[in-house]
């Protein structure tokens, strides 16, 4: 699977047609996706029509946009004109089809990209596993016996499998960063409010953010530029950046390979210091409570009329959230304001914070647990240990795959979070690209491996 830039260049220069690219992409899904279960719907008719339009515009010499003919997929909670937005549930199946695309989908299409598939997710985005009672479990392309992570698991796995170069997901508590980390791809949770949520089915509205997944950091910058309209692809000099390594909460129960990978990454940075954030456990708790309360309130009406239509794991969490009293919910939002101020103050002294994305590699499907404090706990509920507190603050976070350890067999992917001050996506993306070029970040595509071995 080539990069976004390669795709668009080859199509613009006539080396390959957009129609051929889309046909190949759809065929790849039909041949290979049974192993991973990333897609819920293929959009043949729409995609081929859009591709023919791109080819016709190129033939006429009309402008086609920076993402000309690049196929992409969307998590099943983005409105796609003419389709029912399921949000990974059967509860919404009788809703009318969307009348128009979600705004971020419109922006990618305006840049020339072509939507080809909707992608699997945890029901209503409530989980870190993409184990969906209605639409099945998405498997990790690097080891199909393992979780892909969630809730945007289909989006991450489709990129990891080499089926798509670009997908969209959403992140409330870590739903971009967790699956990106477990699948070894790049993901971006932009600054809270940087990208529009119009046409995106909500989960916990005050925490929800949407963002892209890609195979390379340069592609991530390219995608964010198309989504935001802000220049993110001009790589700045990052040699003078002050890097903070988050310790305390963020060093518990870590896989030794993850620690080694972070050490290698930070050894390449000139100015590194340790940073301890206060009350991270409370920040995570606030994220939990806000999510439960806002999600529960959103679904409270339908939970009365059709509770048994929900995935039981989602339903029981939503009901519990709907019954939370107001005091802790408001206190959680006050704590959120306080924690944001803490982060704003921290970014007076550092430019980028580095923290693990998950404690270790993808858990097995038949043992979906992780070890925390010596206890085995549910992966579905706890994989966001390191992502949830940072969601609360609303800063931009790049989920970056660590490069495999030199001289060792390539194991499962491990990922880190690169966090910047609000609105500093360009800085953190430049840092990511520099470190990927240095061979410290970036993980091989599972699909490419499979094809090379075949």
């Amino acid at each position, binding site marked *: 699977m080539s990069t976004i830039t390669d795709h668009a260049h080859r199509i613009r220069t006539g080396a390959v047609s957009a129609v051929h690219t889309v046909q190949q992409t759809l065929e790849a899904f039909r041949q290979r996706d049974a192993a991973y279960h990333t897609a819920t719907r293929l959009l043949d008719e729409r995609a081929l029509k859009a591709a023919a339009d791109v080819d016709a515009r190129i033939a006429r010499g009309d402008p086609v946009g920076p993402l000309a003919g690049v196929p992409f997929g969307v998590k099943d909670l983005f409105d796609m004109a003419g389709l029912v937005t399921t949000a990974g549930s059967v509860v919404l199946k009788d809703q009318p089809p969307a009348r128009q695309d979600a705004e971020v989908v419109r922006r990618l299409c305006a840049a020339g990209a072509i939507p080809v598939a909707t992608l699997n997710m945890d029901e209503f985005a409530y989980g870190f596993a993409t184990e969906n009672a209605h639409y099945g479990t998405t498997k990790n392309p690097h080891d199909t016996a393992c979780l892909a992570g969630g809730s945007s698991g289909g989006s991450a796995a489709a990129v990891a499998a080499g089926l798509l170069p670009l997908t969209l997901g959403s992140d409330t508590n870590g739903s971009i960063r967790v699956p990106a980390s477990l699948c070894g791809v790049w993901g971006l949770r932009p*600054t*809270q*409010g940087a990208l529009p949520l119009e046409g995106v089915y909500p989960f916990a509205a*005050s925490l929800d953010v949407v963002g892209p997944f890609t195979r390379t950091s340069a592609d991530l910058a390219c995608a964010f530029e198309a989504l935001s309209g802000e220049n993110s692809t001009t790589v700045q000099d990052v040699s003078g950046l002050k890097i903070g390594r988050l310790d305390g909460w963020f060093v518990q129960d870590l896989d030794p390979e993850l620690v080694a990978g972070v050490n290698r990454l930070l050894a390449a940075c000139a100015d590194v210091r340790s940073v301890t954030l206060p*009350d991270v*456990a*409370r920040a*995570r*708790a*606030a994220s*939990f*409570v806000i999510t*439960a309360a806002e999600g529960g309130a959103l679904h*409270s009406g339908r*939970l*009365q009329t059709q*509770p*048994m239509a929900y995935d*039981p*794991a989602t*339903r*029981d*969490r939503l*009901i*519990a*959230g*709907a*019954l*939370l*009293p107001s*005091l*802790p919910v*408001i*206190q*959680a*939002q*006050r*704590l*959120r*304001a*306080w924690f*944001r101020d803490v982060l704003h103050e921290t970014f007076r002294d550092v430019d980028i914070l580095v923290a693990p994305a998950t404690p270790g590699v993808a858990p097995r499907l038949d043992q979906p647990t992780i070890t925390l404090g010596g206890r085995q706990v549910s992966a579905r*509920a706890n994989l966001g240990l390191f992502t949830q507190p940072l969601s609360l603050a*609303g800063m931009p976070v790049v989920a970056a795959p660590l490069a495999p350890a030199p001289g060792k067999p390539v194991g499962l992917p491990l990922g880190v979070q690169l966090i910047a001050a*609000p*609105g500093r996506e360009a800085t953190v993306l430049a840092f990511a690209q520099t470190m990927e070029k240095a061979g410290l970040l970036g993980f091989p595509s599972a699909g490419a491996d499979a094809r090379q071995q075949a």
Partner: protein
Amino acid sequence: MREQDKTLTRLEATAESLGLAIPDDCLPGVLANTQLLQGYVDLICGMSLPDTCLPAYEYQP
């Protein structure tokens, strides 16, 4: 009365006050999630914040 029974009684009273019903089949799962959330509620409410720290409903960086 056991802690779990107290939680259940409180849950049912809250549900009734909001005009919500908890289906019997959901009670064990709702109870388990409520107990999990209570741990987080205790953490949040155990923190003292100044009166001027307002809820963060909006974020305009």
